[in-house]
């Protein structure tokens, strides 16, 4: 093997090695991120704890996660289904704007209550406040993170 052949092959193998160096450089962080991403759900904005639920749906004591807009009512298409005879099909909607939670009553038959007070239209909802839909009581809690 003469000098030229040695040189050219060193350069060629160096090129391949650099490609792999790039991959390794990325790989470590890659694996870390992938595992984290799989575990990480969409950023939670808030949670509802089911304080009381005589009818059994939703189950008392459970915690429900909230999307930025969450509908509540007896109809099965709602995000949170309240199977209570005093709840309307489409009872209320919880939304998150800016950094505040709001609840809006959707012209329900028996009304929506926050800490005992009836809600007309839209009202802000703070963490720790209790929401009543029919006979079901739900408390808004901070997100897990």
């Amino acid at each position: 093997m003469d000098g030229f052949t040695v040189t050219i092959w060193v350069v060629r193998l160096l090129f391949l090695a650099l490609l792999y160096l790039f991959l390794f450089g990325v790989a470590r962080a890659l694996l870390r991120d992938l595992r984290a991403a799989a575990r990480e759900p969409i950023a939670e904005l808030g949670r509802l704890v089911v304080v009381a639920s005589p009818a059994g749906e939703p189950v008392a004591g459970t915690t429900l996660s909230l999307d930025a807009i969450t509908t509540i009512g007896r109809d099965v298409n709602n995000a949170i289904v309240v199977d209570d005879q005093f709840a309307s099909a489409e009872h209320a909607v919880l939304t998150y704007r800016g950094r505040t939670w709001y609840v809006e009553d959707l012209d329900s038959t028996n009304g929506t209550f926050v800490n005992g007070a009836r809600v007309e239209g839209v009202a802000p909802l703070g963490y720790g406040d209790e929401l009543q839909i029919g006979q079901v009581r739900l408390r808004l809690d901070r997100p897990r993170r």
Partner: protein
Amino acid sequence: MTRQPVGRSIAHVGLALTIAFGVLAGGAGYWQVIRSQELSTAPDNPAVVAAARQILRGRIVDRNGKVLASNERDENGEPYRVYSSKIVSPVVGYASRLYGSAGIERSFGAELTGLSDPDPIRNLLKKFQTDPYDPQSLTLSLSFELQRAAVRGLGDDRGAVVMLDPRTGEVLVLASTPTFDASAIANPVTSKKAFEAAADDRAKPLLPRATQGRYVPGSVFKIVTAVAALGSGAIEPTTTFPGQQQAERDGLVVEGFRIREHGGVPVRRFDLAHATEVSSNIFFALAGLETGGENLAEYAARMGFGAPLDFDLPTAVSQITNARGSEPGGFIDRVELANAAYGQAETFVTPLQMALVAATVANDGELMRPHLVTALTGKDGTRSLAPRSLRQVISKADADAITTAMVRAVEGELGRQFTPGAKVPGVETAGKSGTAELGGRGEPHSWFIGFAPADDPQIAIAVLVERGGRGGERAAPLAGSLLEAYFDTVAP
């Protein structure tokens, strides 16, 4: 109501894609490592073609070291091939710039140009060398002298001769006539004219008849029937057929079709050895019917029928039937089976295939792989290619029985009439002649297959002379003289 977070699904998709790309890497590995050697040396791989133009190809020599193919340089200093004689053209082929390559030049092109190294590690490291090519010289088992004798013996007739050693599968003669001038094709000056003349010639000199000519076999096919009949146990060497005597007189009726015997066959029952001696159509038709189409096809396949032969050169496929029928073995009906059994149906064979039949019987029923190239010589010395056994076709006992029959065909009182000149003086010779009727006008093909000495065979032979007349007219005496030449020159 709980939905799997999108993040989880995305992770699944990511995993699926990673696996998919892993499969891709595996696929790449398959082609780049596992099949790499095979594809890199394929004759139409452009790297092989490109290299072939520039590299000094290795020489090709016969079993005694006589040079068959070598190189010369033209006025530009670029190499071209020269060949020692026309007689080896069907074997050695040619390597030309315009027309690519043929014959051994083609099938061993990668070795001759040095593109592939027999040693796999060196092959890998080859790219690191400045001069990576190690053109190999090939040593063939061919015997130039015998080949010349064969070609002279065929003379102006079209035909082929194959001679091989049944113990090893080495091919000593692979002659086809008419032949062509390979040097003229390889020489850049005369290349175009010579090639076009050869291609246009109606006698088809470019067709290697020994390996790719397909002919009706006639009675030499009876040996195949004998192999199948004994091998499958349908008959014993002593079997005789009850209805044979009458059939000899009145013809054999199979499903309404009457098979007639040819002249010179006694009107009585007889066994295999006698049937072979007189070349009885009726006996072998009966034997074929008894064996059945499926067994016939199977034993024929064991000797190489039905597929290209495992050989150093490309071969045509020999068949026992067109296989369009629904009877066992592919025959249309039992009439076809009966006719095939004595070699006159839709049966087409190559001379090489028939030589292998003879070699199988000669070698106690074991078929050796036929080959031409016996050694490769490069920078690091010579590497020999060992003989390889393909399979045991029939038992030694069966092979002995057929040998006995074939000895009778050459040396027996009656047999001699059909195979004049085939016997080698002083050597017990076994064989079978064949007359392939082609129907219509014209002479039949003249065939002979055989081997010698019968008790410890060293050489097997197949001779075909197109339109040569009866088997005994051309093929048998030519075979005899060639066998004699073998014992005089190659193995004195």
